[in-house]
């Protein structure tokens, strides 16, 4: 009961402060201190978002498909890679530097190359999403596997468990919190990845929609698209959090 109340009042407080911030922004634009073509008023953005939903929706579905395939493949690939890197020193030695290097190549340069190599279909977008999501999941999971308490693996070994059993029954569960940290990062950035992929070339999707809106000086529509992108990213994040609570009930600290 008290917890419930606290929660409500906390949400209320957040809403109030955020409301005040947005109110100030609205005021600044309405009063002309900030010209609307530089920063549209939040009310305008909201209105545009609602009004153009039916126009944005088909683009959104295209982007979501890329995100869905991307996260799923990144997750599977990252898990396998982390397990292999953990188990085989040689795989780790070769792959780890490559992975880190891959993160230092600007997406904005890579995405056009992907399109060059793989055409205008969904594939290059999915690849960008994978590129964004793979690294945090793989590296976090690997860190989790590496940092499993030596005593716990010893316990399994002393009971005659083999290497694979230790990997899957001891190390993988111990690595779950890390894995979920990686997934949370992946969820946060996956939409951005897909949008950048589209931004740099494509026929449909939120990215394409935004470029067009921007070049047509429809800044309210750019912001409306941002609104949808943020909303989807946050929903994905909450989904991961929900999954974590579901899968790791013993872990009391599952938070954002």
């Amino acid at each position: 009961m008290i917890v419930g109340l606290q929660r409500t009042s906390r949400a209320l407080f957040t809403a109030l402060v955020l409301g005040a911030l947005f109110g100030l922004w609205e005021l600044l634009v309405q009063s002309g201190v900030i010209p609307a073509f530089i920063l549209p008023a939040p009310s305008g953005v909201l209105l545009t978002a609602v009004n153009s939903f039916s126009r944005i929706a088909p683009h959104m579905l295209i982007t979501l498909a890329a995100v869905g395939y991307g996260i799923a493949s990144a997750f599977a690939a990252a898990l396998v890679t982390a397990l292999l890197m953990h188990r085989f020193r040689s795989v780790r030695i070769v792959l780890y530097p490559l992975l880190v290097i891959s993160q230092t190549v600007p997406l904005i340069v890579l995405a056009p190359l992907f399109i060059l190599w793989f055409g205008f279909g969904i594939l290059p977008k999915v690849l960008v999403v994978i590129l964004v999501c793979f690294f945090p999941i793989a590296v976090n999971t690997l860190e989790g596997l590496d940092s499993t308490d030596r005593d716990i693996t010893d316990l399994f070994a002393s009971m005659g468990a083999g290497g694979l059993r230790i990997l899957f029954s001891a190390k993988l569960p111990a690595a779950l919190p890390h894995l979920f940290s990686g997934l949370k990062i992946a969820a946060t950035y996956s939409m951005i990845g897909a949008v950048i992929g589209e931004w740099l070339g494509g026929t449909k999707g939120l990215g394409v929609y935004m470029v067009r809106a921007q070049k047509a000086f429809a800044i309210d529509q750019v912001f409306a698209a941002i609104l949808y992108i943020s909303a989807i990213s946050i929903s994905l994040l909450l989904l991961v959090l929900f999954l974590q609570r579901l899968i790791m009930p013993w872990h009391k600290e599952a938070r954002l």
Partner: protein
Amino acid sequence: MNFFLNNNAAVMEKTEGGGSDGFQDRQTSALAPSLRVEGIKKSYGNLKVLEDVSLELNPKEFVSVLGPSGCGKSTLFHIIAGLDLPDAGHIFVEEDEVTGRTGRVSYHQQKDLLLPWKRTIDNAALPLRISGVSRRRARERARELFPVFGLEGFEQSYPSELSGGMRQRAALLRTYLFSRRIVLLDEPFGALDAITRGQMHEWLCSVLRDLEPAALLVTHDIDEAILLSDRIYILSPRPASVMGDVDLPGRRGIHRREALESGELRGIKDRITRLLSQGDNDGKNSAL
């Protein structure tokens, strides 16, 4: 404690492995030793931990290892269990060399090492799962033992919800379900209160009588060592070597508590205490 005696039948029924062909006396020690530890040396970096440790454990024998804190007892057990390699020396189990090989002895570690992601019942059932028993069957087996270990009602709790003593009992239950013919126990009763400890002692004696494993126990409680053991090894401070061993007369277990409390074993206790302090006076180490 009456509780335990009442439940012996149940306990017996459930134990696996280990020929329980009735009670035998300690004469069996004439046979080839169950466990032979030969000239083990071990250093961590510049820190010499084990100097030259050799000991033997005969079938069905219960032997305690006493030694000052930090002398290397846990390290020795790790090596016997095959989890660590010694710098020199060999481990033999039933005449097979097993240095660096795991799975041949049951090892109860000093920390409870319950898996935070498994409920208490699944933690307890872990050894059964590892040896291939189905989840349902493993849980059933484990559940039956929860009352015996005073954990009834906490089957579905996660380890983080248990107190220190309860965790240790859960770990003991797990070790119980991984019975081998050789059992290593590293301070298994460290976090238990006096009463529970006493009850665990009695229960341990009855289990030992049924399973007849050979057991090696690390403890820092001299009374406990005297109560439970056929023989006691005394280790020197770090770097550890065997300073001597003390044979205990008669049968171990409940009977011996009276002897202990009546002061009958005073002489032996004094001898152990002297041996232990001797290591100190040698000035080998600056510990108290």
